[in-house]
């Protein structure tokens, strides 16, 4: 794997030589995220977001494991145990706010990461497997985030769990039985809370496992880049370390700055006030809304208001899951040989429409269900499916891409036209 000109790991200290013979872990790290991994020299800041997602996962695991030491997964005391963390556990407020806002930061960087992949065609051959594993991680994250939101056992926790597990009752015939079986009761209660806690603790480690597979799969073709061109030779790449470790450190700093601003100054900005009211099965909140990162999908679910052959609810659930599952087929729906949207004017125009479309869906997902918003959501949902399932295959067949540069290095030099060629010769 990797390129023939990749630097080789050469341990100098006797201990490292000894370790390299017995367990070549430092060699693995060197080749994965060290100087042994050649990376295109022209990556922009959008390529920071993979590393940031990894950092966010790590932060979630560390804060989460610590919180679990103080949390009690029992319907009678869960809410109180969270308040104890906030008031009596040393730095407990920090751990909880970091974990709650960490989920938002994690989803945020992953959304940017996915958008980056869409824009620069990172899902296309030869990186299909990297993309597929990424979609698996996204699904795992969504499940984990949902179950984590249930744990404080506030009103939104409880009613969110009620709504989400209600999806299963849309399955024709056996739906209600499946729902009761999954919940361990007719409504979310202790059994469901314990299941969610168990899975909420398990899934991040499954995610970490898939992350390792994803990095493995990435290292076979190597990273994509803003031109979408293949690496042609050593002049096109720089070693990951120190070049991209340095650049990622800048991105990490910006990420932590934003994260800290959220935790310390507006920790409840992205939460819902109702979740500071203890779960009460007898009192339904006026508006049940999920966390911000699920709002576009919630809008798709709500947009299906008409029974047509299938009941509206089943359409909504199918469409909501379908809106994510269709990402698995993206590498085969879009078979334009050009990766980067920089050279695909039509694709790029539609991609910007998609971005606006998803933001509109996000707005509709959280807004009141007045006719104007419902209609807006129905149009936006229709575009979402049309974009991926109809428009994308059509334009990938008909579009005339702009002329591509011959190589990554040529593209870089064009950008910096007028500089001396001697400076660009890379070791």
């Amino acid at each position, binding site marked *: 794997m990797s390129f023939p000109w990749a630097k080789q790991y050469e341990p100098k200290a006797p201990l490292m030589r000894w370790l390299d013979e017995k367990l070549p872990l430092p060699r693995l790290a060197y080749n994965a995220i060290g100087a042994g991994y050649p990376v295109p*020299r*022209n*990556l922009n800041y959008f390529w920071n977001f993979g590393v940031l997602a990894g950092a966010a996962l790590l932060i979630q695991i560390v804060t989460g494991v610590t919180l679990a030491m103080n949390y009690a997964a029992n319907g009678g005391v869960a809410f109180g145990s969270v*308040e104890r963390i*906030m*008031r009596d556990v040393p730095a407990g*407020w*920090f751990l909880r*706010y970091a974990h709650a806002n960490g989920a938002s930061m994690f989803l945020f960087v992953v959304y940017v990461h996915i958008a980056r992949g869409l824009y620069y065609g990172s899902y296309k051959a030869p990186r299909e497997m990297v993309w597929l594993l990424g979609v698996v991680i996204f699904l795992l994250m969504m499940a984990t985030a949902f179950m984590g939101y249930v744990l404080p056992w506030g009103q939104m926790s409880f009613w969110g769990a009620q709504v989400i597990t209600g999806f299963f009752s849309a399955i024709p015939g056996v739906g209600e039985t499946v729902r009761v079986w999954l919940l361990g009761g007719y409504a979310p209660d202790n059994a469901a809370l314990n299941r969610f806690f168990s899975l909420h603790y398990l899934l991040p480690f499954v995610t970490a496992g898939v992350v390792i597979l994803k990095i493995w799969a990435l290292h076979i073709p190597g990273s994509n880049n803003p031109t979408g061109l293949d690496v042609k030779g050593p002049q096109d790449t*720089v070693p990951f370390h*120190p*070049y991209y470790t*340095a650049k990622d*450190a*800048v991105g*990490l*700093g910006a990420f*932590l*700055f934003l994260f*800290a*601003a959220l*935790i*310390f*100054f507006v920790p*409840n900005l992205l939460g819902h*006030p*109702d979740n*500071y*009211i203890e779960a009460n099965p007898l009192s339904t909140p*006026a508006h049940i809304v999920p966390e911000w990162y699920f709002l576009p999908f919630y809008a798709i679910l709500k947009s*299906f*208001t*008409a029974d*047509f052959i299938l009941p509206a609810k089943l*359409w909504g659930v199918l*469409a909501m899951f*379908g809106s994510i599952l*269709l990402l698995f*087929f993206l590498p*085969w*729906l879009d078979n334009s040989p050009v990766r980067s949207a920089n050279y695909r004017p039509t694709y790029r125009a539609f991609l910007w429409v998609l971005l606006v479309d998803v933001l509109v869906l996000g707005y509709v997902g959280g807004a009141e269900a007045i*006719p104007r918003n419902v*209609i807006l959501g*129905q*149009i936006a*949902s*229709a575009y979402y*499916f*049309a974009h*991926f*399932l*109809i428009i994308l*295959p059509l334009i990938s067949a008909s579009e005339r891409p702009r002329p591509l540069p011959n190589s990554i290095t040529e593209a*870089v*030099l064009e*950008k910096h036209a007028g*500089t001396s060629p001697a*400076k*660009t010769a*890379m070791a």
Partner: protein
Amino acid sequence: MVRAISYLVGLAFVGVLAIALIGTAYSAVTEPPPATAEHEFHRHPRDAQLASSGAFGKFDDRQVQRGFQVYKEVCSACHSLKYVSFRDLGEIGYTEAEVKAIAAQWTIEQPSINPETGEAATRKNTPADRIPSPYPNEIAARAANNNALPPDLSLMVKARHDGANYTYSLLTGYQAQPAALLREFPEAKTPQGLHYNPYFANLNIAMPAPLTAQTAVQYTDGTRGTVDQNARDVAAFLTWTAEPKLEQRHAAGLASLAFIAIFCFLAWGAYQNVWRDVEH
């Protein structure tokens, strides 16, 4: 093959959405959603101007103490504060002796067990105790309040949008139902036993005005005990009960941002240095 299926699935979703859209548009025209009194007469909270608001906010201990006095003399008759312990009052400036005295003199005693007979009993509160609830259970609370349950106030400020301002506005917002409302929505007349308050979500709240010009709490620190002042102070106190670590959080936040800013500066320098010879 993938494309043929993709077109079909895409058309199916778009088609069903088109049908749904026609249905939505049709019913929006034929039966437009009725205007409601809540929609027209509900008001957004007014600013309570608390010292704790904003990124650098700190509690004004004297105000929070006055708010505690209002809670003790008025609110605590019906509302519990179950996540707050007497010892926590040390954080808003009471000395250890004062906390002990407040706990010992609290009207509602702590439920306990008679050590000799094992029968249910009560004892005086200590600083380690949580502030006891005025009612032994929910049924008792409802029975005493016309079947309405006075909610616990510990987290109230975080459990409402714009909670501190909401608390202040609600407590000062009691008024007679506007004539315009009754003219437009005769069926929205405040029912017997409820009280009109434009800051409450559905405009009619079960709690009667707790602070009135006659019953306003008088302070010992020289501040004039008006209804408006009482409401501001109790909003400040409930901000503290909901978020007791607010000051530590703000202080730690400033230190963290400064630290991260330095990190960013160094990382940027390292980045410039590492890449100085490479066009990218």
